[in-house]
């Protein structure tokens, strides 16, 4: 059969078996392209097809799928993110984690739309992928090393211009929220992809390529990129992102009631003014950005005073300032910077690490954990020293760190004595820095997201920043529809490989995305924005079907008890709780899913082109007859 010419795409998928030390390269199928676009879409479809239900997330059968979109490395702005899809050791379900930097573009240059890794290497290994050649290299000399040191050695050994993803000691020790780090300080942090790499004895994937993607209509695409950049610079959020990235919203979101404190107890945070943007700006000593992104939202902070002086590091993002800061009652900015750096070095997700530490602090406050059980650490709210020590203990699984390395869900089960009440997670994934009681569609997204509590799965712009329209964040009516809409849109943009930051601020309008996708690929279907939105919905449905196949149901679409029973204590959401049952009922109706079980109906699956998936769910007895 003649190979169909794929423009924009690399046109190939690399399949690696670590057990057999073998690999093969196949063409990227045209139906995969049309039905799933790329990046998150590719990862979801490949995981559904390749992973047997019930596989151990930390076993050799699990797959680790790196994928990129058709716009990566084409000149389109903010479009070269890489996606990592796997069964999560935290949630036991479908997961996709996202990273920035240069790695995604380098995958395209090497000639791959996706790299699918299975099996388990016999001994510590790293992959050296240079264009069409894949080498299985011994990683014994960097096993045990922190991410930066391992990076330096591997890049030096192979090619100073290579790009890589790497794990630290936390991933090697199977900490369930270990991150995957890049050589340019970015992370695909959430869900435990680093632990999956560690379980495969895979320290790093080093990539170097020399190919340039061929696009369908270069002149048109160049014109559209110019249009895109023009939209960027005129957008009111553009300058804010360039100046301070996500740190521009900390004080604002505290004021709006979104920014959590004290393990989501939401007490007033004394000294919160230190997070005002004008007070954070003086820390910036250097800026940067991902491959082909005019926005450039990276800032490097320098600490010059106190016990944590002497570092220049990628700044703690909004989420991290909260989880390693206000969630622990901590406003010591230099300490947060230091804790953030430690997480990157050990290879830990700063959100899950921070929430887990805040959980331990609250257990200590309540007397559920005593000093004897914390290895002598005195976990007093606002004290940074135990935070630093706990990060190290978690990463190395020492003492109490071994329990906390399992994440709050499993740690609470192990500790018992009512600890579950203080474990802030959904489906095992620790909550990010928003309060479901203060933004109902956003909270509903946490409850229903197929990866657990992720703000990136369906960022509710209308509630959080009043864009593209302003809605009352505390209202319940209409929120199910809003939640579905932002989840589907996010899935679509992530299938195209686009970053959430410009997308959620309106810098990549759907019509422009559609035209760029067509100019890059020549795929006729991509000219229709409504088709693209349907693909987004298809992806969310397939992810849901994956979880249903693994045994998930409505009972997993929930939130921690604190949000359902404890009224929010301060303005502007004072007195609010999260109305879970009503919002869930509305959501399943909006989705066309079975209200009692949360399972997508056959009608819905067939509507989004997933008849075969409906057949499989039926065969597995997942439908109530």
């Amino acid at each position, binding site marked *: 059969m003649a190979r169909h010419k794929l423009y924009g795409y690399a046109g190939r998928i690399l399949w690696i078996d670590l057990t057999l030390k073998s690999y093969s390269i196949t063409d990227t199928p045209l139906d995969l392209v049309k039905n799933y676009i790329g990046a998150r879409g590719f990862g979801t479809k490949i995981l559904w097809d390749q992973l047997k239900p019930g596989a151990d997330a930390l076993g050799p059968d699990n797959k680790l799928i790196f994928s990129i979109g058709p716009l990566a490395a084409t000149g389109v702005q903010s479009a070269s993110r890489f996606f990592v899809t796997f069964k999560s050791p935290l949630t036991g379900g479908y997961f996709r984690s996202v990273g920035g930097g240069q790695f995604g573009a380098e995958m395209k240059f090497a000639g791959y739309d996706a790299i699918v890794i299975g099996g388990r290497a016999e001994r510590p290994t790293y992959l050296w992928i240079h264009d069409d050649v894949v080498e299985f290299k011994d990683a014994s000399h960097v096993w045990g090393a922190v991410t930066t040191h391992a990076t330096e050695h591997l890049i030096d050994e192979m090619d100073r211009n290579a790009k890589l993803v790497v794990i630290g000691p936390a991933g090697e020790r199977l900490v369930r929220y270990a991150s995957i780090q890049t050589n340019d300080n970015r992370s695909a942090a959430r869900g435990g992809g680093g632990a999956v790499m560690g379980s495969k004895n895979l320290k790093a994937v080093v990539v170097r390529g020399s190919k340039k993607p061929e696009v369908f209509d270069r002149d048109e695409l160049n014109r559209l990129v110019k249009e895109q950049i023009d939209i960027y610079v005129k957008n*009111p959020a553009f300058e804010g992102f360039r100046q301070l990235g996500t740190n*521009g919203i900390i004080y*604002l979101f505290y004021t709006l009631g979104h920014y959590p404190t004290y393990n989501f107890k939401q007490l007033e945070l004394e000294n919160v003014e230190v997070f*005002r943007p004008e007070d954070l700006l003086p820390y910036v000593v250097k800026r940067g950005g991902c491959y082909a992104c005019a926005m450039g939202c990276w800032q490097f902070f320098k600490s010059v005073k106190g016990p944590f002086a002497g570092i220049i590091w990628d700044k703690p993002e909004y989420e991290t300032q909260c989880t390693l800061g206000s969630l622990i009652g901590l406003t010591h900015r230099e300490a947060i910077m230091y804790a953030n750096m430690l997480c990157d070095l050990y290879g830990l997700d700063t959100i899950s690490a921070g929430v887990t530490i805040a959980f331990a602090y609250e257990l200590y406050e309540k007397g559920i954990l005593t000093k004897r059980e914390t290895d002598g650490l005195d976990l007093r709210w606002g004290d940074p020293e135990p935070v630093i020590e706990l990060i190290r203990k978690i990463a190395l699984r020492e003492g109490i760190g071994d329990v906390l390395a399992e994440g709050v869900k499993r740690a609470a089960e192990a500790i018992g004595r009512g600890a579950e009440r203080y474990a802030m997670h959904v489906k095992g994934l620790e909550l990010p820095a928003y309060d479901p009681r203060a933004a109902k569609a956003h909270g509903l997204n946490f409850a229903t997201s197929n990866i657990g509590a992720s703000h990136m799965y369906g960022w509710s712009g209308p509630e959080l920043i009043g864009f593209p329209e302003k809605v009352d964040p505390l209202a319940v009516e209409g929120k199910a529809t809003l939640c579905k809409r932002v989840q589907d849109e996010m899935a679509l943009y992530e299938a195209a490989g686009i970053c959430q930051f410009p997308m959620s601020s309106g810098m990549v309008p759907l019509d422009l995305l559609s035209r760029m996708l067509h100019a890059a690929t020549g795929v006729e279907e991509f000219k229709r924005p409504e088709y693209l939105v349907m693909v987004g919905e298809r992806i969310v449905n397939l992810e849901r079907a994956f979880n249903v196949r693994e045994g998930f149901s409505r009972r997993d679409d929930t939130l921690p008890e604190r949000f359902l029973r404890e009224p929010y204590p301060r303005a502007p959401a004072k007195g609010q709780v999260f109305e879970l049952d009503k919002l869930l009922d509305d959501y399943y109706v909006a989705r066309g899913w079975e209200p009692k079980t949360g399972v997508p109906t056959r009608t819905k699956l067939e509507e989004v082109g997933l008849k075969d998936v409906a057949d499989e769910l039926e065969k597995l007895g997942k439908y109530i007859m």
Partner: protein
Amino acid sequence: MRVLVEFAWSLAEKVGKKYIWLDVKGEELDLQDIFSRILPSILGEDLGKALHDLLLNRGAFVVVNGIMAKDLKVKVKDGDKILLQPIASGG
């Protein structure tokens, strides 16, 4: 009545202060009055107009007591806290 207006980030730099208390005698006011009339009389016409234009062009968030203002018709009362910040986003 007494109203606190906070300026964040580049607006604090432009205005030269992080906040300002407004003492206004017994009127019923909305945000439009604050930004088109009262602030320009304190900060100067040029700066006042620049701020007002920024709001009209949706270049800044206006938050009243922790709630994002839908428009400039929102009523202001004694003790209110108004935060003005350039647009930002993320997560």
